[in-house]
């Protein structure tokens, strides 16, 4: 050893210098986190036990999957003209739903943002509406609206719009709360009116963030609109479901491939749009302005085209409001007694599916996400492969995965867990990879400078920095998975969704109301809880 011995430190029994501790003092926050970790672990094990999840089932399932894949190949497109029509319809539904949601969300966001709301009570009410829209799953809106206004695209578009308000309204309001107050004050100092201040002082600051959110939401809604047809709300989902019902799996795969092509194209397009609109280059201000105009005009045209193609009279948006309200009124008063024990069991199953799928998703996503991060990955080719895999998984809607797993492992919650767990890779894996690419590279260099190898860089420089966002994203994933697991029952993959679907089909609206209320409470509680935990990390 070389000159290590620090001169001023005495040995054991020294001069009252602080003693090293085997662990840091348990602060309140740390205690909370440790407890929550324990609770999470316990919930996972309990869910595992409750669902009687066994790896043997999966192994047995591989044969079934192989047979299923055998029957899917080669994929066929029965009626190319109709398939193209349906794909276009699905695409336009997603676009229109997002546009309508945006129109609804902008005023709501101004009412819900702390710094633009006219009154705290209004703010609380607006936030409440937004949260409600988010906590009721899209397919639940669709089921109810299909009942209220008949089978067809209108119900689907409105369901997309209403559920999207939950995300758009929140993110729009968050963007407003983060603005720089200076420009706003400057506009006010010119004597401008209230509305003028908002339009000139606030909107210019939030538009980039809003556009990013909008493009992202179109992407999400496209995935959702693919499965809306499962409950009769228009788009390609209905045709997909009928070919699955009639066991013509090759036709189903043909349709899924058509959908995947559109989703992949959309992903590329949204990256392009975001790049063009949100990263203005100093060198081509004219090109940027032209891009903005083309985007705006294109969006307007596409919206008009969507109304025409889907044969929706824009006025129905207003005239159908009473129908929607009437449908909502039939859901109250909620009736919890109807199925009794069966209901609570289904609710418990929904929770267990969400928890177990999230745990599995975390276990699979962390290594995959780290491999996909350029800063960590041992080789660029590996990083691209991992990114590609996650992208592919992300573009398959959970409900379609659930259909595949139901075919493979049979009806029941195990199929739901597998579908959501695999689906989680696309979501959490990407977030892990992004977080690992955004870390401060200084500590990485520092660990390398002390002679640390790849594993040590990973554990001592990367993971400690990624950890907060990892915890946050995992909780968000739990949120999403529980929301999804409430609708899996529609295709027989367990949970409360089956009861809900049956209740609406048999016109048992008060019971449906009870289920929706329970779903809302669960999703709301989980969301609040995960938000609170994220704030502690």
């Amino acid at each position: 050893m070389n000159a290590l011995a620090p001169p001023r430190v005495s040995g054991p029994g020294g001069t009252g210098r602080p003693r090293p501790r085997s662990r840091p003092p348990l602060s309140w926050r740390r205690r909370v986190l440790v407890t929550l970790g324990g609770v999470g672990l316990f919930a996972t094990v309990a869910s595992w036990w409750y669902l009687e999840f066994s790896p043997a089932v999966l192994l047995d399932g591989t044969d079934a999957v192989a047979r299923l894949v055998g029957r899917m190949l080669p994929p066929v497109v029965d009626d190319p003209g109709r398939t193209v029509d349906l794909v276009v319809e699905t695409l336009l539904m997603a676009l229109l739903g997002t546009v309508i949601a945006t129109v609804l969300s902008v005023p709501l966001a101004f009412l819900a943002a702390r710094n633009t709301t006219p009154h705290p009570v209004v703010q609380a009410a607006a936030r409440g509406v937004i949260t409600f829209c988010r906590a009721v799953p899209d397919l639940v809106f669709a089921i109810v609206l299909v009942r209220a206004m008949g089978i067809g695209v209108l119900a689907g578009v409105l369901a997309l719009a209403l559920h999207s308000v939950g995300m758009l309204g929140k993110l729009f309001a968050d963007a407003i709360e983060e603005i720089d107050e200076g420009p706003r004050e400057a506009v006010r100092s010119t004597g401008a009116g209230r509305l003028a201040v908002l339009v000139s002082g606030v909107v210019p600051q939030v538009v980039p963030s809003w556009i990013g959110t909008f493009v992202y939401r179109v992407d999400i809604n496209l995935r959702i609109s693919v499965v809306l047809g499962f409950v009769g709300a228009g788009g390609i989902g209905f045709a997909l479901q009928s070919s699955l019902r009639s066991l013509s799996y090759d036709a189903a795969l043909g349709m899924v491939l058509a959908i995947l092509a559109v989703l992949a194209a959309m992903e590329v397009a949204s990256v392009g749009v975001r790049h063009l609109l949100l990263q203005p280059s100093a060198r081509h201000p004219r090109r940027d302005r032209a891009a903005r105009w083309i985007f705006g005009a294109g969006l307007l045209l596409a919206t008009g085209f969507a109304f025409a193609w889907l044969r929706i009279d824009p006025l129905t948006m207003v005239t159908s409001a009473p129908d929607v309200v009437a449908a909502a009124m039939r859901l109250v008063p909620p009736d919890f007694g109807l199925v009794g024990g069966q209901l609570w069991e289904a609710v418990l199953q929904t929770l267990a599916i969400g928890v177990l799928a999230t745990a599995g998703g975390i276990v699979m996503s962390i290594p995959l996400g780290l491999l996909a991060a350029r800063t960590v990955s041992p080789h660029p080719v590996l990083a691209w492969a991992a990114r590609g895999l996650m992208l592919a998984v992300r573009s398959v809607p959970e409900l379609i995965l659930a259909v595949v797993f139901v075919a493979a492992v049979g009806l029941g919650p195990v199929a739901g867990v597998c579908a959501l767990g695999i689906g989680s890779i696309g979501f959490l894996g990407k977030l892990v990879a992004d977080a690992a690419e955004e870390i401060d590279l200084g500590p990485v260099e520092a660990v390398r400078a002390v002679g640390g190898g790849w594993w040590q860089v990973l554990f001592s420089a990367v993971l400690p920095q990624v950890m907060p966002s990892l915890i946050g994203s995992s909780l968000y994933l739990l949120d999403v998975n529980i929301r999804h697991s409430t609708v899996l029952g529609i295709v027989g993959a367990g949970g409360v969704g089956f009861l809900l679907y049956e209740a609406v089909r048999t016109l048992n609206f008060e019971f449906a109301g009870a289920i929706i209320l329970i779903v809302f409470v669960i999703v709301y509680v989980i969301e609040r809880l995960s938000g609170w935990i994220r704030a502690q990390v």
Partner: protein
Amino acid sequence: MSAPPATAVTTRGLVKRFGTTTAVDGVDLEVRTGELVVLLGLSGSGKSTLLRCLNGLHPVTAGEVVVDTVAVHRARPAELRRLRTDVGFVFQQFNLIGRLTCLENVLIGALGRVRGPRYGLLTWSARHKREALAHLDRIGLADQADQRADTLSGGQQQRVALARTLMQGPRLLLADEPVASLDPENAGTVMDLLLRVCREDRLTVVCTLHQVDLALGWAHRLVGLRGGRKVLDRTADGVSRAEVMEVYRRLETATGMAVA
């Protein structure tokens, strides 16, 4: 470890290119064991790159680098990692992990001599923790051991980073603008501490600095870089401030001409 050779660092015709830019352009440098060498020069003159070539954080493009007895320019990754355990590096931006405690950050310095990855205090042995605490005590921050690193001031953070380096038990210390992100008062404190520690431990030091006065105050030798080339190499005794300032001034005119 064997007895240290008389020369701690040797470079011959060291060249480092990033794409088409040449950051270091044929530098010959020799640092004797126990010597304190300061590299001077404006930002972009290649000082930081040169330092990172010495411990292999940047692979060299051409030329030779010998540190201790290791030929860095042709060392295999495992050899490089072994070398780095003996070479301390102090960064301008400290490179601490803000959400870890000071003690955890100091422990990172021991990664080179343990096997396998570590995460969290529980994965370190009591001996390592005692040692880390002793180093924190030495730089005067033992009381802050359990605090998150990002709650400390810049000067304190750099001292923690110094403790992390000491944790390695280095024989050679490379310091990259250790006080450039600090206010003058903190810069003085940190620099004094760095100097004292290096003297007490008889470390060889190669340090880049912006502050000419600080450099004149404590360096044995001054080396000036300009555009990746060595333009000054003098012992600190008898060198005048004006001579040193030439390194900067000539660069200014050179840049001016290049722009014009």
